[in-house]
């Protein structure tokens, strides 16, 4: 049982670490600031979630779990808003011109 | 003393339960700060006055308790004994600082009632800020006086700095803001170095209590490197906060730009707070340092401060800057005691000279800044060359300046005279006559610029009394009272000076007898003679009675002008931020290396 749990931890944490690496790579490789922001918010939140998931079996009391989950929820909340906030702050000045053609070509109206 | 059996018993009873009395000077300003904010600026002036009166009474009671008890009072806060807890201690040194800060602050508070009273029914910026910051300074000083723990003292120093910096920029002009910023940054640098030293001491001994540390350090076979490094760092950090040359870059603009009441507090007391800590470190914490050759370096810097400060004061065109540079010089005297402490008379004797200089300068400089403020307010400017006629408008103020000046020059029977006599005596006893030379030169230069200022003030036809704004009579009297206090310090009964040796090794010869011998009227003439010569010189060169500067000057004048500009250039360079920073680093390294070599030499 313990071995299974340990294996689960190793797998989840490793996968989480891979996503962190992906976030960093995106941050370094993507061509513009906004694309980098995509990499950051999406990959890192997933990475953090996986790390939390992996750590759950390692916490002595099952009641310690929920603290970890609280951390993840809060990180998700602030990650989602902070990403949007930064996007608004770092968008290049010409963003309005870029959207000038009007509604996107395949915009669906419902 | 025998007539005071009943008060003695009462005091003994009061100090018996561990000296809870010591908490009072600590608590009064703290409670004052908190309640003061609630009271608001409108009622703050009288409130602070009442509080300071109570504080003075408390300081007197503590002093009486210490003197009658004959040994330091100790109090363990929270009932926890060091090293776990924090102790308060009142020895002779603490008592002197407590009394001085209470007296000077009270004087300034009386003076400032008029300047910082809100005109209307509403609180104004100045009325809240000044009084609160004054309380902050007082709280910091009292904690510095009583604190026995290096970290508590650090917090107290920061309390002092955070209160002092905004006082500098209270008038809100760009120059004073810049001066305040510079003061803040340099003072912060000083505190960080001090804290670093404290950290190293904790790393070496696991405690921050001065008493416990002193015992352990004294027991060590040789001073370990951490102690030496800590000593170097703390000394330089505190020197930066005390504005010893070459780390004086912040002082002249800050002290000259502040409102007069604030300048008086800053110059008289705030710089003394950090100096006081320096005394604690060198005389109580690591007395072994005094025997090291590196102690001479402090004296050399002190001598440099005396010469540079006085020569710079001589060149100032503005009265407040003159007084500020005079502070730079007077700080130098404080540091002469370090090389002289290792002489035969013993450290306690040098310490008492240093303490006396703290008190004497605090009173005299407080008075002088207050007087300068009154003059500037009456005339609307403080250009020395245009002071003509002030003597008739503000006779009391000018008298106060003159009396305070006598003390700074060191004329009998002032406190300044006693300090110089003591330092000269120590220098001669130790065979280091050159310190005496510096003292003489400093006194003459001080006399020269003070006469220059007073001569201008007394000469010519100035503003009609009606055009000048009349200051408050109380303000003038406060300035005079502080000056007289400084002048009459030398007339105190000699036993008073024994106070300083409470709680430390008494000197071979009782302080009282040493001081008693130092003072007699017969030497007054000898002290006045050089002064007269200076007066004649000043009169000869001064542009009195409408006579402007004569055309071509002889070579002595050219030489003097050259010297003046050279000193001015040097001072301007030293007061550049990078140069001051360089000096700071160089001092840390010099002291550190000097301590290390000295300590090794002592062991072998």
């Amino acid at each position: 049982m313990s071995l299974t749990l340990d294996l689960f931890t190793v797998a989840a944490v490793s996968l989480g670490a891979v996503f962190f690496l992906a976030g960093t790579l995106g941050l370094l490789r993507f061509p513009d600031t906004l694309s980098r922001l995509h990499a950051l918010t999406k990959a890192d939140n997933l990475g953090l979630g996986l790390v939390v998931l992996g750590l759950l079996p390692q916490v002595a009391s099952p009641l310690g779990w929920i603290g970890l989950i609280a951390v993840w929820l809060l990180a998700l909340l602030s990650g989602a808003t902070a990403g949007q906030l930064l996007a608004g702050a770092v968008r290049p000045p010409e963003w309005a011109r870029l959207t000038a053609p009007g509604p996107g070509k395949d915009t669906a109206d419902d | 003393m025998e007539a005071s059996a009943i008060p003695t018993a009462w005091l003994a009873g009061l100090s018996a339960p561990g000296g809870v009395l010591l908490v009072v000077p600590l608590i009064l300003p703290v409670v004052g700060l908190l309640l003061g904010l609630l009271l608001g600026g409108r009622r703050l002036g009288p409130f602070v006055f009442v509080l300071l009166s109570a504080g003075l009474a408390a300081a007197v009671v503590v002093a009486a308790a210490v003197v009658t008890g004959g040994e330091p009072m100790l109090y363990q806060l929270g009932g926890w004994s060091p090293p776990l807890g924090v102790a308060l201690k009142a020895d002779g040194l603490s008592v002197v600082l407590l009394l001085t800060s209470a007296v000077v602050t009270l004087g300034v508070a009386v003076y400032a009632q008029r300047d910082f009273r809100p005109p209307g029914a509403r609180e104004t910026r100045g009325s809240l800020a000044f009084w609160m910051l004054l309380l902050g300074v007082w709280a910091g000083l009292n904690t510095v006086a009583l604190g026995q723990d290096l970290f508590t003292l650090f917090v107290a120093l920061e309390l002092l700095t955070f209160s002092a910096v905004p006082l500098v920029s209270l008038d809100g002009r760009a120059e004073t803001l810049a001066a305040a910023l510079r003061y803040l940054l340099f003072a912060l640098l000083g505190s960080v170095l001090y804290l670093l030293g404290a950290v190293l001491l904790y790393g070496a001994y696991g405690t921050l209590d001065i008493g416990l540390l002193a015992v352990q350090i004294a027991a060590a076979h040789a001073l370990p490197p951490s102690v030496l490094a800590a000593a170097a760092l703390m000394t330089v950090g505190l020197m930066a906060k005390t504005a010893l040359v070459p780390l004086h870059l912040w002082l002249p603009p800050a002290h000259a730009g502040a409102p007069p009441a604030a300048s008086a507090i800053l110059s008289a007391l705030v710089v003394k707070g950090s100096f006081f800590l320096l005394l604690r470190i060198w005389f109580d914490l690591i007395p072994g340092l005094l025997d090291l050759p590196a102690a001479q370096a402090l004296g050399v810097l002190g001598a440099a401060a005396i010469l540079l400060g006085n020569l710079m004061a001589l060149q100032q065109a503005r009265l407040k800057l003159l007084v500020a540079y005079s502070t730079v010089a007077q700080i130098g005297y404080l540091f002469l005691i370090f090389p002289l402490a290792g002489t035969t008379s013993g450290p306690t004797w040098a310490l008492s000279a240093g303490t006396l200089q703290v008190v004497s300068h605090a009173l005299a400089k407080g008075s002088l800044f207050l007087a300068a403020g009154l003059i500037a307010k009456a005339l609307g400017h403080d250009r020395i060359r245009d002071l003509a006629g002030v003597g008739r408008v503000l006779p009391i103020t000018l008298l106060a300046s003159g009396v305070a000046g006598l003390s700074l020059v060191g004329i009998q029977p002032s406190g300044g005279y006693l300090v110089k006599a003591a330092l000269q005596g120590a220098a001669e006893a130790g065979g280091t006559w050159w310190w005496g030379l510096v003292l003489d030169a400093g006194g003459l230069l001080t006399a020269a610029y003070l006469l220059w200022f007073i001569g201008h003030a007394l000469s010519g036809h100035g503003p009609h009394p009606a055009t000048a704004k009349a200051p408050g009579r109380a303000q003038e009297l406060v300035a005079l009272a502080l000056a007289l206090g400084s002048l009459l310090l030398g007339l105190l009964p000699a036993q008073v000076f024994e106070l300083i040796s409470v709680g430390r090794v008494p000197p071979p010869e009782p302080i009282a007898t040493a001081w008693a011998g130092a003072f007699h009227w017969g030497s007054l003439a000898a002290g006045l003679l050089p002064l007269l010569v200076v007066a004649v010189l000043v009169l000869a060169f001064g542009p009195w009675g409408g006579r402007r500067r004569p055309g071509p000057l002889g070579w002595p004048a050219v030489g003097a002008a050259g010297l003046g500009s050279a000193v001015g250039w040097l001072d301007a360079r030293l007061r550049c931020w990078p140069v001051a920073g360089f000096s700071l680093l160089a001092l840390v390294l010099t002291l550190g290396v000097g301590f290390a070599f000295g300590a090794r030499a002592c062991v072998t």
Partner: protein
Amino acid sequence: MSLPLSRMARGVGFFGFWLLLAGPGVLDVAAGTPSGGPVAWAAELVLGLLASLAATWASLRLLPPAPGRVRFTTLARLAARFLWQSILAGVDVALRAFDPRLPLNPGYLAYPLRIRADTDRALFGAYTSLMPGTLPVGSDTNGALVYHCLDLEKPIAAGLAGDEALWRRVRMGGLGDE
């Protein structure tokens, strides 16, 4: 659900978060292993109530309950979709970052969001900022939400429309629509 109820729901939610924070302290007792005795437990519980009261008060003050009702079953669906989509988003970005050819086709897309209430717009923006390939950067003059997209080839607008429809069903009006 009426307004007082939704207030209480918030309070309950914050108390739940408090339990997450205080976890071991409070729940140890429930699990039968009181660590600090019943007094400490009661104290912790009372403090939790007070804390969640304070949090609820602040929350109601900062964000008064909007009109309209919330349908919880749809909300659960939305949450599940969010979770799944955010995983997809992470994987999507990771694959692009690891791909040596860096397959990106970034650009902007204006999505004419019909939700008008400020808070809901911002919430929708936050929600979509964790969806695959979309990141809202602001509103244009026509009131459309402008997205920065990693790959314009993807049918992004359709996905957004689906999200908006789901969102609408959760909120059941009160969105200040056109």
